[in-house]
Each structure stands twice: as structure tokens, then as C-alpha cells.
């Protein structure tokens, strides 16, 4: 109980300094004054505190012993590099924004990748093409028999079919498998009748698609260079800031 009272009292005494300077809120001040009215120890503390503050405020201002004006620019000491700190920060921020814009723009504007054909289906298509012969030529992207989904596991054995049946099947497949939005398909004109039919991309072409095109490569290079520049600018900014803080010791 006595310890609790001592701790409580200590709390009041810690606020006396702020009370002397009028730094308490009106509510805190009223509470303090109510406490002081009933606590002699705190009143003694307050009197002592006021004496100390009065003593300190009576310390006179000393006259300067001499002028501290600089006679000349301190040799080789002018921190000329300080003037570059702000432009450097601006350049770092600009590089960061550009890099983010490049990466985000690349991600948002790049078209989704085309679904590549099953390599197992390609020979089948070619086989069908050669078996069909005639004007119809190639089939749609994924050869599916009319009325049913193709099983990728089951590679149908190519067998010669009557040309008329092949043509009907080809037309149905064309209609069912019109490329949707965003799907790239190659339209090749048949040499015989000039009709354009979507064709399957040969595996060799698919591999070409996997390699970045020239503009994309340039974009990657631009992003890499910008990232490297940003890293360098960040390091320079941090070094300058550290040097300024050391000069100033503003930690």
C-alpha cells in the first residue's frame, strides 16, 4: 500500500516540471492544483522546482569574446556535392516511376500467349491433310470429329475418307472452332481455291513464337538498363544522405 502511494506520488512529481511551465492541459492543470491543495510534499517540491528554474533564468548572457565571422571560404571544405542531393533524389524517383510504368505497361498490354497445339496432334493433322488431298487442305486447330470431343490420348489412325465427307467435316470443324477473341490463328490461302482456312502452326513455328521477338527483346533490355540505373541512383542518394547526416549529425 505504501509502495503504491509512493509510486502514485512520484507520478504527480513528474508532472510538476510541466506544470511550472504551463504545459499541462486545462484538465490536467485542474487535477494537479486539486492534488497540490492536499499534498504538502508536492508543494515543497514545487517550491524547490520554481527556485531552480528561477536560478537558471537568472544566468546572464555572456558577451562574445570575438567575432566569429568567416574571413574566407573554408579551403576545400565547401560541401559542393550537397547541391546535387535534391536533383539526385528527383532522378531516382523518376527512374523508379519509369521502371514501374514499363513493367506494368508490358504486363497489361502484352497479348495473352496462344495455346500451343499438342505436338502429338501435329503429325495427325499433316497426315489428314495429305489424306484429304483436294482443295480443302488443312483442318482447324484441334482436329475434333463432328459431334464429339477429341481424345488427345487416342490418336485416330489416319484413313482415307471420301472427299465429300471430308469437306463436310471440315466445314463443321471450321464453324465450331472459329478463333475466339485474342486467339491467334494463321489463315493460309489454299493454292487451289484461294479459300482461307485456319491452320495449325507447325512445331517449328511454335518454337519461334517461344523466342522473344525483336521489340520484346528491346523492351527487356530497356527494363534491365532502367533497373540498373535505378539501383545506381539509389546507392548514390543513400551515400549522399549519409554524408550530409555525418556533416550535420542530424541522426
Amino acid at each position: 500500500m505504501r509502495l503504491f502511494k509512493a509510486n502514485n506520488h512520484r507520478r504527480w512529481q513528474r508532472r510538476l516540471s510541466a506544470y511550472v511551465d504551463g504545459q499541462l492541459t486545462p484538465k490536467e492543470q485542474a487535477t494537479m492544483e486539486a492534488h497540490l491543495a492536499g499534498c504538502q510534499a508536492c508543494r515543497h517540491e514545487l517550491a524547490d522546482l520554481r527556485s531552480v528554474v528561477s536560478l537558471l533564468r537568472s544566468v546572464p548572457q555572456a558577451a562574445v569574446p570575438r567575432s566569429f565571422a568567416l574571413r574566407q571560404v573554408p579551403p576545400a571544405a565547401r560541401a559542393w556535392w550537397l547541391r546535387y542531393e535534391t536533383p539526385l533524389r528527383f532522378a531516382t524517383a523518376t527512374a523508379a516511376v519509369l521502371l514501374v510504368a514499363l513493367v506494368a505497361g508490358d504486363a497489361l498490354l502484352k497479348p495473352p500467349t496462344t495455346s500451343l497445339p499438342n505436338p502429338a496432334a501435329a503429325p495427325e493433322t499433316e497426315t489428314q491433310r495429305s489424306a484429304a488431298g483436294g482443295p480443302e487442305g488443312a483442318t482447324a486447330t484441334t482436329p475434333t470429329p463432328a459431334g464429339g470431343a477429341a481424345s488427345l490420348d487416342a490418336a485416330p489412325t489416319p484413313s482415307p475418307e471420301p472427299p465429300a465427307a471430308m469437306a463436310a467435316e471440315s466445314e463443321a470443324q471450321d464453324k465450331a472452332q472459329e478463333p475466339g477473341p485474342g486467339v491467334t490463328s494463321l489463315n493460309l490461302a489454299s493454292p487451289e481455291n484461294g479459300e482461307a482456312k485456319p491452320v495449325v502452326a507447325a512445331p517449328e513455328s511454335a518454337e519461334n513464337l517461344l523466342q522473344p521477338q525483336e521489340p520484346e527483346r528491346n523492351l527487356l533490355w530497356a527494363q534491365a538498363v532502367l533497373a540498373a540505373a535505378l539501383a545506381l541512383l539509389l546507392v548514390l542518394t543513400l551515400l549522399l544522405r549519409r554524408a550530409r547526416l555525418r556533416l550535420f549529425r542530424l541522426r
Partner: protein
Amino acid sequence: MENEATFIQRSQRGDLDAFNQLVLHYQGQVYNLALRMLGNQASAADAAQEAFISAYQAIASFHGGNFRSWLLRITANACKDMMRSARARPSLSLESLVEPNPGNIPQSSAESPEDFALRSELGAEIQRGLDSLPAEQRLAVVLIDVQGYSYEEAAQVMGASLGTVKSRLSRARERLRDYLRQHGELLPAQFRLEG
């Protein structure tokens, strides 16, 4: 200070004369802060000179605000550096002995020699009390009680929050009170603490 902003801008363009106008205006405050922090004239003069040199070197990085707080902060840092150096070289700590009349306090013509001596001795005793404080507490009490700056300005100079300033000031005053109670017989009657 009138035209302070103009002098600052000219200083930032390398005009030493403009900077020296700022020096002439603030050197009293800078020197007194250093004197109360370090306790002797020679160290205070060195710290003040170093503070003005550092301020001239770094003035390009001053982007507006309270120039006095900025300058006093440089001064406080210069004082802390000197205090650290003195601690690192104990043989030099003799220089930090408080002088009988720190700071060339002039004797008033209406003041008797005894009163002048008493006032000088009082100043010396208070300075010894200040010297007994940790650096941050000493800075708080010198800025607010001795130099008369506001809590807000002291917070800017110290680079601390208002709460931290209040806390350091409170502890500094308590320690000074305890110190002066122990040496109370040297104090004039009106200042003697009840204890």
C-alpha cells in the same frame, strides 16, 4: 532578423559577406549555447567557430523553416562532438573545469564587488551543476531555462518530440535541484532550497 531570407539565399549562392551578416546576428546565441554546454570559454569559442564553418558548408541544404533552430542544432552537435572527444581523452578534461567567471560577465557599475563576486560564484555553481548532467538533459535545460527558447523550438534543435523534451527537462531540473541542495550553503538566501 530583417531580410534574413535574402541573406540566406545569397549565402547559398556563395556570398560570404551575406553569410557573415547572419553570423553577426546569431553569434551571441550560438556562443552562449556552447558556453553553457561546455563550461569554458576556449572550448565554447572553438565549438561556435566550428558550428559556423559547418553551417556555411551545409547552407545549400537549408530548405526553409527556422534558421535559428537549424543553426543551433549544428552548434549542439559540435558541442557533443567536443564532449565526446574530451571523454575519450581524460587528460584534457582539466580544460572543462568551470572558470570562476565563465563568459566574461561584466560587472555592473551599480554593483558592489561583493555582489559581483557572489553573482559570479553563483554562475559558476550553476555551471558546475549543469556539467553534472548528461548531455541531452543539459541541452534541454540550457535551451529552455537558460536561453529561454520555447519547448517547440527546443524540440527542433534536439531533433526530438515534445514529450521527450518535457521528460528530459523534468529529469534535468530534478538532478539540478538535488545537486544544489547538496551545495546549498553557497547559494544566496533567496535561492537556498528547503530540501
